[in-house]
């Protein structure tokens, strides 16, 4: 599954992204458009960002994904 992740910093061909409180470093080498702070990116296996997502659609996708996290959280 692909998790839209928000860009919190950019350093050349690498970026740090955040999603559901988890931050990680991803490669921008497959991106075909410019990336800026706050953008929502789709990350593929291997840590490669491949697409930028419209903010409204990205937030909607995150709400779908949150239902899975809630369902798999024993404390929920």
């Amino acid at each position, binding site marked *: *599954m*692909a*998790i839209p992740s928000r860009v919190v910093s950019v350093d050349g061909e690498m970026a740090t992204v955040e999603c*559901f409180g988890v931050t990680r470093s991803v490669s921008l080498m497959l991106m075909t458009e410019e990336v800026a702070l706050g953008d929502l990116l789709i990350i593929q296996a*291997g840590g490669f960002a491949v*697409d930028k997502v419209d903010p409204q659609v990205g937030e909607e*996708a995150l709400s779908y*994904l949150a239902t899975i996290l809630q369902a798999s959280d024993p404390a929920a």
Partner: protein
Amino acid sequence: MTDLEGRLEVSLRCADGQVVDVAIVNRRQTQAGRMFVGRRPDEVAGMLPLLFSLCGHAQLVAGLEAMEQAAGLVPDPATVNARRLMVVAETVLEQAQSVLRDWPVLLGEEPDMASARGLRAALGSLRGALYPDRDWARLGGGRLAPDLDDLTRRLGEARRLIERAVFTGPAGYELGDLRNWADWVRTGATAAARLVRHIEEHDLGGLGAGPVPLLPALDRTVLNTVLATDDGAFLARPVWNGIPHLAHPLGRRARHPLVAALMLSHGTGVLPLLAARLADLQAGLDEAEGLVEDCWGRGRPARVDAGGDGDGAAGETPAPPAQHIGLGLVDAARGLLVHRVELDGDTIARYQILAPTEWTFHPDGALACGLRGRSANVDHARLLVAALDPCVACTIEV
């Protein structure tokens, strides 16, 4: 990484230099379809390519097919062809991206990211050249208005990149000719040729060959019944006729002359697995160009054949659906992808997704059987995992 993305964890237990057991923990979200329950089909269709970015077009088309069937909608042949083109172009992109990005790493070389990015630029947004209103995810079909010039330009650019970066020019491009293949392996200057040469020089062509059969074309009625009664175990660890199967492009390319010849000597080992993916790349590009030409180039009758040189797992004609139930089968880059939906009025009551990775990385599937009894060598395990090509990250530990 969150647990949502999923991963595979492979542990090898070794003794006396041999792998005596293989444990595979699959942390993929095999019940992800549950997030669609209570939603409207049109909402879900819009989300599918975003939530499943790997093979996003195949996920979308399988989902549309299932939801349209459940709703009693029948897309017109032009829409079927446009969707087929989207899936085939995606297969080309997935295979080529893997060859350019992942295969060099197996040799300790730098990945060819410039070519991978160029290919993504050419094929990644090809759907926009079919659907100018960006409504490709509409149930029943969006407004199809193909831009023939743009499609031709994109596929031409993809072919030039692939011929240069994978097959070393047109002379090395015809894989069906065994002498040509041997020449390419011997002298090819790309990482793909060097990897195959490395495999042959180290006599690793049969690595991973085992008793797990290729996934055949599945009977839709039986599959629907199995899924209808599934409590989650089948989606997580599928078997057919009681045994695991190998879901891989090798299934649809098993009759390709080169692939068939390699299977005679190496079974379902890494060399046929990798050759099948190269054949898939080549055949996919040919099919994409043929679809554009046949469907929109000269106004000839639309072609709906899914193609393939083997026993394609999604090649059956859909059976009439039961009311409010739909089944979508798509031959995706990594093999058969299945979506099944049950509607309750206008909303989704049940949604199931069965991906090829669950077949191949079954605890007793092709990877596990292919490594058991082999020499304890993590590099060999990595090579087999790369040839089988899971859709998520995979860690290997001894």
